């Protein structure tokens, strides 16, 4: 299996920048959870680049929106519920908004992840399987919403990769399973560090930085008795906000 890594983007949330960025991009985020806004802010570099409509979206996260969920639970205890909260908290609300903003209509999947090495790369594995089966393009991302220390403003962010089965022949950035790969030399491998639970976006962001620096990481096996690795030979178009 050979997949090209075409581009990457990263969004760090603080000081309500997500709302400013989304407004500037012409997106109405008033009814969205912070989780959805963070996911959406991360894919903005592709808003005007017209990805093929069948581009698939695979998102890894540990939850819906913590803030909306807490509001829902508080309302329940007081004997009422708000329909818009429920729709905002849908686990797949972020991928719905990503598809809407980018004009996509293909597969959209949310998969549960945490910071453990055998868990956080699962969406990447699913995206690769999808591209192997159906071709085309896939966005794979990780998104996290966390309350700040004061519990008021949500922090977190998202990291996204654009993968392609179409460009694998010519691309210099290639994801391969071990069956097809020529393993890089030990000198250029870095073992993926063990992350604290639920800090999967930190893992993804660290990987993003490593990719930008041209490092090659050995990835944990996606299934028992299998392995894969990332081969990186050139500089990707990166966007970081």
């Amino acid at each position, binding site marked *: *299996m050979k997949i090209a890594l075409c581009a990457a983007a990263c969004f760090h949330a603080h000081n309500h920048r997500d709302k400013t960025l989304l407004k500037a991009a012409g997106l109405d985020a008033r009814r969205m959870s912070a989780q959805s806004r963070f996911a959406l802010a991360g894919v903005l570099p592709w808003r005007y680049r017209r990805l093929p409509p069948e581009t698939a*979206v695979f998102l890894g*996260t*540990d*939850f819906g929106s913590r803030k909306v969920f807490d509001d*829902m*639970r508080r309302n*329940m205890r007081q*004997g*009422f*519920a*708000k*329909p818009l*909260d*429920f*729709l905002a908290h*849908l*686990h*797949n*609300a972020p*991928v*719905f908004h990503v*598809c*809407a903003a980018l004009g*996509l*209509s*293909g*597969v*959209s*999947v*949310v*998969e*549960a*992840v*945490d910071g453990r090495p*055998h*868990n956080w790369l*699962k969406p990447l594995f*699913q995206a690769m*399987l*999808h591209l*192997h*089966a*159906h071709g085309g393009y896939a966005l794979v991302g990780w998104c996290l919403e966390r309350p700040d220390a004061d519990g008021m403003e949500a922090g977190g962010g998202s990291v996204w990769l654009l993968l392609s089965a179409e460009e694998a022949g010519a691309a210099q950035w290639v994801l391969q*399973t071990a069956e097809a790969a020529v393993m890089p030399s030990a000198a250029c491998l870095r073992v993926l560090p063990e992350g604290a639970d*639920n800090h999967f976006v930190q893992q993804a962001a660290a990987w993003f930085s490593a990719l930008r620096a041209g490092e090659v990481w050995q990835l944990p096996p*996606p*299934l*028992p008795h*299998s392995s894969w690795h990332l081969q990186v030979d050139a500089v990707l178009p990166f966007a970081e906000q």
Partner: protein
Amino acid sequence: MTYLCGHSVRYGKPSDETFEFLGVLQTAKYYRAFEQARLDISQTAAVCMAQIRAAAQEAGWSAEQFHEVPLFIGSTSYTVADSERADFCGEPSYLLNDLAEYLRREGGFAAVHSFATSCTSAANALMRAHDLLESGLAERVLVLGVESFNLLTLMHFHSLGLLGSEYRPFEAAGLILGEGAACLALSRAKPSADGFVWRLAGIAAHTDTAQPAESSSAAMASVMQTALARADVAPQQIAEVKAHAVGSAGSDAAERQALSAVFGGEPPLACIKPQTGHTLGASAAVETALWRPQAENRLQGGLSRHHLLANFFGFGGNLVSAVWEVSP
């Protein structure tokens, strides 16, 4: 190739649930499947393990073998019921991956994937399983759907005005939620046991971004057509459609219109939800498991066509259609 080698299912019967909403006591119908008012994580895992064992046993897989098999879970609630239990006595905790990690740790599974795409969660798990089997990286996959009662979901469906008191698909009577669990044992190898052979001939997913709570008939027609094209099957070859038939006026009308656009009229329909309630993220596993023997009975009765189509639609514009080839 993806063959359905075994299945298991547990589903509920209608009962009454009461809760207070805006100071008024409300009663809602709900299909209860489990003894406990709310399952904790160990009880949820036990429910899952029972379904996995039963499906693996029907498929002829030993316990040693099925622990090596990747497990793909679809659910909307996951362990939110456990979180509600904890809510009464202290700090709640609930993450989407908790059940997967519990099953990995306590159940000994090597790889557990959890999908969360609202009511199509198990349907997406089925599609991911199909892609994995097609890749040749795995010989077998287990697809598990599980949904258990929690007040959060019931109260919010009530707030959306979607609940009814009797399940009458395509009659705008409203929907009734339910809990349940089911497991599908899938393999690249054709099953050797006697009986009908179910092969997943094509499956497709589509995201309709018109609005999150109700998809359009055009998007529903599109996902059915893509699944048919992937299966290389013409609409005329379909013997029966397992409709999503959720019970809400808008969704059912859109599905009926989509069926008419694809099939040029209404094909023979199977509607499972009156038996089970709407089991949300588990519904693709629960309904496929229940539909299998019912459809086989009808095929044995002399139906000349041997392809079946199943629709699974959900919030967030998430639509999945699957075409099964059923051979004697």
